[in-house]
């Protein structure tokens, strides 16, 4: 899922300074699951903003909405009837959702309420970790199912580097060396021969380096 963290409230308040009538929009997708942008967070954030603003003698009116997903046009359209009644929308969906709103509602400023994080997994309740960078060219079959691009701090294809000590990355004690994980896994799978092969240079064009990406599947376009 796409993860994120709440923006510091001071930053949000600063963004909102010019406005006194806004929408706080949550998303029922990934950000609900990672507990940063669901209906409950809409309530908490809206309450927090109202309190802060009223205390500062600068009351703000907030409409609280939570879209099924902010990344699908039909759901986004459901806001259209009333979005014009507000000065701005503070979205706590991921960056994709926020932009999609901005794209659809061209006259309304869209403000981010969260910092979008990464494509990750829930390691346990309250702890998420990155697993994929969406490079568009998956090599997981060669690396024991562990992504060298994401899991190695240097995205090395022939790791580990000298900074790997006892399975820990030199960058941070909390980061496991991705290459140690890959090697452990290859060993367990009996696929160490994959390690000994020189990998071709990574083609980054399928990643973000090729410009904003688009997937078109003709068979599905109706």
């Amino acid at each position, binding site marked *: 899922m796409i993860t994120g963290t709440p923006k510091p409230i001071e930053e949000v308040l600063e963004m909102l300074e010019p406005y006194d009538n806004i929408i706080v929009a949550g998303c029922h997708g990934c950000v609900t699951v990672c507990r940063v942008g669901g209906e409950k967070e809409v309530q908490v954030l809206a309450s927090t903003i109202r309190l802060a603003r009223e205390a500062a003698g600068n009351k703000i009116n907030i409409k609280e909405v939570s879209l099924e997903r902010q990344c699908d046009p039909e759901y986004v359209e459901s806001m259209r009837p009333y979005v014009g009644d507000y000065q701005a929308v503070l979205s706590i969906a991921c960056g994709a959702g926020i932009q999609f709103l901005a794209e659809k509602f061209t006259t309304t400023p869209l403000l981010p309420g969260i910092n979008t994080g990464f494509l990750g997994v829930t390691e346990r309740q309250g702890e998420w970790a990155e697993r994929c960078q969406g490079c568009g060219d998956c090599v997981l079959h060669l690396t024991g199912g562990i992504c060298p691009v994401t899991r190695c701090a240097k995205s090395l294809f022939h790791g580990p580097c000298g900074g*790997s*000590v006892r399975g820990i990355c*030199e960058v*941070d004690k909390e980061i496991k060396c991705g290459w*140690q994980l890959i090697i452990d896994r290859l*060993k367990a799978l009996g696929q160490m021969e994959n*390690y*000994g092969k020189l990998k071709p240079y*990574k083609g980054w064009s399928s990643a973000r380096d090729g410009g904003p990406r688009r997937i078109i599947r003709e068979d599905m376009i109706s």
Partner: protein
Amino acid sequence: MKSGSNLEKVLAAGHFSVTAECGPPRGADPEIVRKKAAFVRGHVDACNVTDNQTAMVRMSSLAGCMLIKEQGIEPLIQMVVRDRNRIALQSDLLGASALGVRNLLCLSGDHQKFGDDPQAKNVFDIDSMQLIHLVRTMRDEGVFPSGDKLEGAPQFFIGCAVNPFADPFEIRVPRLKLKIDAGADFVQTQCIYNMDKFKKYMEDARKEGLHEKVKILAGVTPLKSAGMAKFMRRMVAGMDIPEAVIERIAAEPKDKQAAKGIEMCIEQIEELKEVEGVAGVHVMAIEWEEKLEEIIGGAGLLPRPVLV
């Protein structure tokens, strides 16, 4: 001869070779390089010039190479893949070769987190292994990786670094093999203190016949003090300093520890000379270049052979 460099020649002639290292300054003052070069000159077969080591911004490696070359030292350019994508790397390789640099060490580079600009974006377009391969392709096939023909192929004696003590244990030798397959001509190792472990490493490498495919220069660093030893053990990733080594230097009074460090380094080089497959030493006298002569000479490796 792949590159025709002095180092390549010395090694090819079967001499026990010596390289050293020279870090460019954190500034634009060429005199600093020249001063360091004076300590190195005549004592080595080639001298490494580091490339923004530990992600601290320094004078560029190529400029450093040129400055020491002016001083009559054969340069060995280090090149990390952290800061440059494959376009910049190719371009710099061509430039270095054009300027007469013939020795190259391909590295990943320390993570930017440790340097001046931890907020910087890293590149890592290709990794060091792929850089070796890239250089070899350009040198041996005379083409760009893209397939286009080069207007003059670069000439490099291609090196890489290995850490015989790094985790995980089981990939140390396979990894060396991989580098050889990629195109490495020589390797310089991380500085060695644990001789037992290093000998075991060499034994494993010999089993695979790797010592015959690549020239192995064993890294050594003289210890200035017991404190430094402890610091390195604690702070430098993959540094294996046995307790006995530390005890030995710590047994000396403080003012005698530096001399002891040099004595121990010389002993170590003597010992390395006897290890089958070790083709030379890489003496990293970090900010202590003035002792190079004492060390290298002490180990009976002076004067350096001059080959034409």
